[in-house]
């Protein structure tokens, strides 16, 4: 029984066909990792799933319906924290502005989620004053506090210095263990190995191959996947 589903999704920008009929589904608690060359449509697929882009055909459903605001959380490559707000205000923002919670309740929940990503002590700091890894953890807390039914990660570690990647992956792994449904675009193959339920290979707007990580990495079926893996590893 799938929770998040993309059904024959098409997306084009003018002449360029970015998604050519993508169908896939995620079951509750599954972690799907998507890999593929740049321009293969991975990020566009995530943006369609988060309803940040209108699709040109096909359907996105969450539990059979169109997702509501904040129900699908999104974490971006470049963190995209609100620069005019402290870490705490960033996390509170969705609760206050979208969920219409009181500031007091929002503050309490936000502090709790900052604590979960290990950053309760950074609450009064502005994004400019945090490291990339810390900013990304705040961004994760900002999405989680909305209690989403699924989380999407768009290359969450590729803008980070190597020594900061681990702290973000740790948070994501903990989240996966707690049973969060996740779709992750990432080239962290070790993460995919350890955490993914299945790994998907995308190329030219299509899903080329999908299988459990052990199989995917040791015995890829498609020529395209083999070539790509040999370049990444």
């Amino acid at each position, binding site marked *: 029984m799938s929770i998040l589903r993309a059904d024959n999704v098409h997306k084009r920008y003018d002449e360029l066909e970015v998604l050519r009929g993508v169908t896939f589904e995620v079951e509750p608690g599954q972690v799907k990792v998507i890999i593929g060359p740049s321009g293969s449509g991975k990020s566009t697929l995530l943006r369609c799933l988060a309803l940040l882009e209108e699709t040109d055909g096909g359907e996105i459903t969450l539990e059979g319906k169109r997702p509501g605001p904040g129900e699908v959380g999104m974490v971006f490559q470049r963190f995209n924290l609100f620069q005019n707000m402290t870490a705490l205000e960033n996390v509170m923002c969705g609760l206050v502005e979208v969920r219409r919670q009181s500031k007091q309740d929002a503050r309490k929940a936000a502090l709790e989620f900052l604590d979960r990503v290990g950053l309760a002590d950074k609450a*009064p700091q502005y994004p400019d004053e945090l490291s990339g890894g810390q900013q990304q953890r705040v961004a994760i807390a900002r999405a989680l506090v909305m209690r989403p039914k699924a989380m999407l990660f768009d290359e969450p570690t590729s803008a980070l210095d190597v020594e900061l990647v681990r702290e973000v992956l740790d948070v994501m792994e903990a989240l996966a263990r707690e049973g969060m449904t996740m779709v992750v675009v990432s080239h962290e193959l070790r993460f995919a190995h350890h955490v993914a339920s299945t790994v998907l290979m995308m190329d030219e707007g299509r899903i080329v191959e999908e299988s459990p990580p052990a199989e995917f990495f040791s015995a890829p079926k498609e020529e395209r996947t083999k070539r790509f893996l040999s370049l990444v590893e």
Partner: protein
Amino acid sequence: MLASFDTHLFWVALSSGPYWRGALLALEVTAASLTTAIIIGFFVALGALSPRRGIRSVSWVYNWLFRATPTLLQLFFIWYALPQLWTGFAQSWFTPFMAAWIALSLNEGAYMSEIIRAGLLSVDPGQELAGRALGLSRRRILQRIVVPQAIRIAIPPTGNEFITLLKLTSLASIISLHEILTASQELAVVKFQYPEPLLAALLYYLAIVSVLMVLQSRLERRFTFTSARRRRPSATAAAVPAVSHDAR
């Protein structure tokens, strides 16, 4: 050299009623026009950034019209031509102050729209995306996220515009607005002595602009998003350049 400098006349000028009232009037026209211009400029800037072509061209025409023609001509047009075109302006409410306010607001609105547009564009679009992912409406995103950051970028050039406007109010002396230049000329003509009245006028402008510069730096600090600003207000003078004007 300074043989003909009449210190007494200088003090008379500096403390005279017409000077004070003139300065106050200039400040009022400037503040009123800039405020109106910011409102006009905000909507013209939003129009210029609109995905709709019709709206973009309205903004374009507005900027073209008010930047391509001399401010003095616009002032004349509004003061002399408008009442003849439209009797609604041939009434007692249409004072030199109102005419200067309308003319300078319309003119300055075009310049402010460019400043505001640059401010809005300076905010990384990724933040808008993040806001939408959380479910914020476009209006909320503008209010809570984009505008506060755009203000920080727009403050220094807006300070410049304030100074420009303040000096432009002297143009309105020609439509018999009794601002500082009028006061100094009247005094000079009566006494047939120019250095003292004009020097006094210069000092008034310097004083007003100095106060403005202090206010501006406070405002910049208010819109600088670091926690240092809150914890140690005394350290902010050092903290502000770190966020740097040179980033522009």
